[in-house]
């Protein structure tokens, strides 16, 4: 019943209206379907049981947040979900957190008592950040595993930069690159062999090398981008797909979608086990996380750390700037 509703919702959802803040016409994901999926996932009985990926990534993102020796009055958590990251915020580092998510049910899933800091919840579209907050109003914006469902990533990054006060901090984590490549390849091989062609079932992912370009294009300075992987072992492909659905991370690619046929699914399950399975009979799933940060000074530990965070700092006059052309006093000829 629910599944058929979801399918109907997926098909009948009109393509979203043009977004005045975006730069391009790209529409890849159906944001309405994603909101419905997230709402439904949050209402599910086992919703908390599938928090493991989000909690792990929030934990790793918090390590990076702790590296920034600064205290904030307000931290804006964009695409917070139930607040996996905000729950880890300590009162010494931030007085208040504002959570923004398009899914109302996910936003209100966990009670205030689970948070150490004061929280405010705003239900709104992450893609229209500037309609929710004023430009130049935020000290810090964080985003934990939500930007991979944003249609216009360049536009959203521009809005984040606009919303930040000068020298504000942006710290983000998103799925990218090789995320779920095992499932992607198994489904593609199964569809190719059984039906003779492939359809998109796994989202296109942002590549790591593109993120630094996108951040630079959005006007962030002092970038740090790094990559990390979370590997989870599942009993079989079906358990992985169940859990993805329960996380609200099911397929939400725009356009007419067709459910996978059952024999194609069975074929994919067989291929998954043989192609990627471990010796103990379980199958691995890779979640590749791109962390991005733009930040005044990246402290020492980060430089030795091979994991990848996205941090972004809004430009300000107090930040170190390159000198004007022609003002150099040291001749490179002599040095070399």
């Amino acid at each position: 019943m629910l599944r058929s509703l979801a399918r109907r919702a997926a098909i009948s959802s009109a393509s979203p209206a043009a977004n005045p803040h975006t730069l391009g016409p790209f529409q890849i994901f159906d944001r309405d379907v994603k909101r419905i999926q997230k709402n439904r996932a949050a209402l599910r009985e086992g919703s908390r049981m599938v928090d493991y990926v989000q909690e792990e990534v929030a934990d790793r993102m918090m390590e990076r947040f702790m590296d920034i020796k600064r205290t904030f009055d307000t931290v804006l958590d964009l695409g917070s979900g139930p607040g996996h990251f905000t729950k880890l915020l300590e009162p010494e580092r931030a007085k208040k957190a504002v959570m923004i998510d398009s899914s109302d049910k996910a936003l209100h899933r966990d009670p205030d008592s689970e948070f150490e800091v004061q929280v405010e919840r705003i239900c709104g579209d992450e893609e229209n950040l500037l309609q929710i907050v004023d430009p130049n109003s935020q000290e810090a914006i964080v985003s934990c595993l939500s930007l991979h469902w944003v249609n216009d990533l360049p536009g959203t990054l521009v809005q984040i930069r606009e919303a930040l006060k000068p020298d504000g901090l942006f710290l983000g984590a998103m799925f990218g690159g090789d995320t779920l490549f095992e499932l992607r390849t198994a489904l593609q091989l199964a569809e190719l062999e059984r039906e003779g062609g492939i359809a998109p079932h796994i989202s296109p992912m942002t590549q790591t090398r593109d993120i630094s370009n996108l951040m630079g294009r959005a006007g962030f300075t002092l970038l740090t981008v790094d990559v990390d992987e979370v590997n989870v072992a599942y009993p079989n492909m079906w358990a992985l797909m169940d859990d993805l659905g329960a996380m609200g991370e099911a397929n939400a690619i725009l356009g007419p979608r067709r459910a996978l046929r059952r024999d194609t699914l069975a074929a994919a399950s067989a291929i998954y086990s043989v192609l990627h399975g471990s010796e103990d009979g379980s199958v691995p799933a890779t979640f590749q996380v791109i962390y991005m940060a733009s930040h005044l000074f990246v402290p020492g530990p980060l430089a030795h750390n091979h994991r990848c965070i996205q941090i972004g700092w809004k430009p300000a006059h107090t930040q170190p700037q390159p000198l004007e052309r022609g003002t150099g006093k040291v001749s490179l000829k002599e040095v070399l």
Partner: protein
Amino acid sequence: MNSTVSTTKTPLGRLAVHSTATCSIQATAYGKCILATYTDVTKDVCKEEFTKFATCLRQAVCHSSLRSLPLAQLDGLYQMGRKW
């Protein structure tokens, strides 16, 4: 990792059990066939192996369901059989 949904109550859950446990031998044979040709897969390249796998699945699904399901659910089972 525990799955959130009991894998034996829904039709898809039963398919999950049968495709990974009951028919694991045929599933592995099919998977190995794909593995041998995975750089150049075309439609029906492993048809023979898949037919054996699918036959096993159909038998497993029908057999176990008919014994364990109440009559009211047989209708749904029939529909599911037609989808195959």
